[in-house]
């Protein structure tokens, strides 16, 4: 039994290290491209016509700011239009929308509630522009975001461009944790972009060539993650998706654990179930890096995270129970002179050296992520919160999503 546990631990560490090294090599390869991309919006000759869809369901509080951020985009007004779809809201969303009815750039539609993908498909039928994108009604765009995206479409093979998503004005500890996590996401997506392995076209401000929807169809339910399903469908049909890390979109991150938990269970559940639906891509060289490496590692990392967390929990609880036995036996007898600073008592096992190496590489990637997303690295309290809390949060939603996937899949098979 001990041998199997040790073997799993070694395999986990090997694959984690492999992934980190792979990411860092990719970073070295694309480093020059990253600096070139900064100049991309300086010399735009032609602005393609673009429509931004805002699907809304009970978003009266943030809707107005979302729409204003689109109207404030630094982009020719005659080339930019908005379609606002009220997906059967029951709050004051309709009244909020009415305030924009006189704007010539904006068209407003109301429909019965049917879910985000139905609102998007409804709007897509009205779109005539070259490009189309969506912005969730809890997100806001930087004025230069669209200009940082459209130049990518000069390359005719590119069918979708995703932005960098950041947390809007973090207030709670959990929002600070997510701010750092999103920086990770910005780095990861930029690397995946170069690998041709983006597997999400995020709801906030991913821009597509309009004709892609004619070719592969509109949005699907996609297990509540229609943006993930769309990206996988595009990848399966060999359509190119890239990321513009300079196009910044801000989103309101869940403020408390319960909201965050729900969101992440949905994301993880969506990922797992779409991965099952698109399983033929796995280990299939035909689909390049995404099939051969990224989808398998993303799936396996869910299990690894749960396993590593279990392992840490087991070690910590064994230590605590030992301390408890000691306390029970001889009381809280802290003899300072008996604390041994001899290096002999340091844990120098292979596993601990490998764990420290993996953590060190994680810190390097975190540094690069923050540099990429913020322009420069600055130590903030978010980093501290992230390092202290994140490991303990993730297993909750991973386990729940895994459980739901196994359980519901079983039910649906009957």
């Amino acid at each position: 039994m001990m041998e199997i546990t040790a073997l799993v631990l070694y395999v986990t560490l090997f694959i984690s290290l492999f992934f980190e090294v792979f990411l860092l090599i990719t970073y070295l390869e694309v480093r020059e491209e990253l600096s070139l991309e900064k100049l991309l919006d300086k010399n735009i000759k032609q602005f393609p016509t673009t429509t931004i869809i805002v699907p809304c369901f009970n978003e009266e509080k943030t809707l107005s700011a979302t729409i204003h951020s689109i109207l404030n985009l630094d982009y020719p007004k005659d080339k930019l239009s908005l379609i606002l779809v009220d997906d059967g809201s029951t709050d004051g969303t309709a009244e909020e929308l009415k305030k924009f009815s006189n704007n010539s750039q904006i068209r407003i539609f109301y429909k019965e509630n049917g879910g985000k993908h139905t609102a998007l498909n409804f709007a897509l039928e009205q779109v005539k522009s070259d490009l189309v994108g969506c912005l969730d009604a809890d997100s806001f765009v930087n004025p230069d975001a669209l200009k940082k995206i459209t130049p990518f479409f000069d390359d005719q093979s590119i069918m979708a461009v995703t932005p960098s998503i950041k947390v809007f004005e973090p207030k709670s500890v959990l929002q600070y944790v997510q701010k750092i996590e999103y920086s990770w996401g910005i780095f990861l997506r930029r690397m995946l972009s170069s690998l041709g392995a983006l597997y999400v076209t995020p709801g906030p401000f991913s821009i597509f060539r309009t004709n892609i929807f004619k070719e592969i169809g509109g949005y699907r339910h996609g297990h509540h993650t229609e943006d993930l399903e769309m990206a996988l469908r595009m990848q399966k049909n060999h359509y190119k998706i890239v990321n513009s890390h300079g196009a910044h979109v801000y989103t309101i991150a869940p403020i408390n654990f319960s909201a965050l938990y729900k969101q992440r269970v949905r994301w993880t559940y969506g990922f797992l179930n779409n991965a099952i639906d698109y399983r033929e891509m796995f280990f299939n060289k035909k689909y390049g890096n995404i099939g051969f490496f990224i989808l398998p590692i993303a799936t396996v990392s869910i299990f690894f995270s749960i396993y590593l967390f279990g392992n840490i929990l087991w070690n910590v609880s064994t230590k605590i129970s030992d301390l408890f036995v000691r306390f029970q036996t001889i009381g809280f007898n802290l003899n300072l002179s008996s604390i041994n600073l001899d290096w002999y008592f340091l844990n120098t096992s292979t596993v601990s050296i490998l764990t420290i190496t993996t953590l060190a590489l994680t810190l390097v990637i975190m540094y690069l992520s923050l540099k990429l997303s913020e322009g420069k690295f600055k130590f903030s309290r978010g980093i501290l919160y992230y390092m202290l809390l994140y490991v303990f949060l993730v297993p909750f939603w991973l386990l729940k999503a895994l459980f739901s996937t196994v359980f519901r899949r079983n039910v649906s098979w009957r």
Partner: protein
Amino acid sequence: MIDSKKYIITFLITAVIFGTAIFISNALGEKKLEDVKSIEDRVALDILSSETQFALLEETSCKDLGPGFLSKELGSLGEKLAYGDNQTELNNDNLEYLKRSYFLLEIKDYLLMKRLTEKCGIEPTFILYFYSVEESCEDCEKMGYVLTSLRDKYPDLRVYSFDYNFDVGAINTLISIYKVEPNLPAFSINGQLYYGYHSVEDLEEQAPALQDLALRAKALETATASSSSQETE
């Protein structure tokens, strides 16, 4: 579409990191065992020196024996070997060998102490402790804490610990001399046998030898306290 060269390079780098980690860990493990070995050598030398001194006793008196007559390093040696039990990086065969010689050194030290007692009429307090590393001995861990705590409390107390199931002839002889049953943890304080878990307080109450030690420690404490107060006056 797949850059297989990149995958191979990544694999090689990862493998090198892995190999280096294994190498460093083994090297440090060996260094640790060398550390233990050098302490054992020092203890062996201490014992040899004491034995020589003892042999010379015929010609000299007990007064000439310094306070460091018995080796001081046995305790820390024991701690290091006990810690080594849970460390995967230490070579098992080497550790086994070091433990074997540790047990023998303990017995030699014990015999020397006994002879000193007879010859010079000193009455040191000693504990022979028999434990097992097997899971069946649940109280062994707790008893270990108690004995370490006692040793910290009474520096004059000599604790000799032995793995009951370790295959060393001398341990078996010791077991049969003291008629120690395999009902562990078991220990003998100045020849009196005890079985099972006993707390520090229990032992201080039950064992007369420990009571003496406690009285001596207290007397020493008052003596130093009064001498230091005199100095301040």
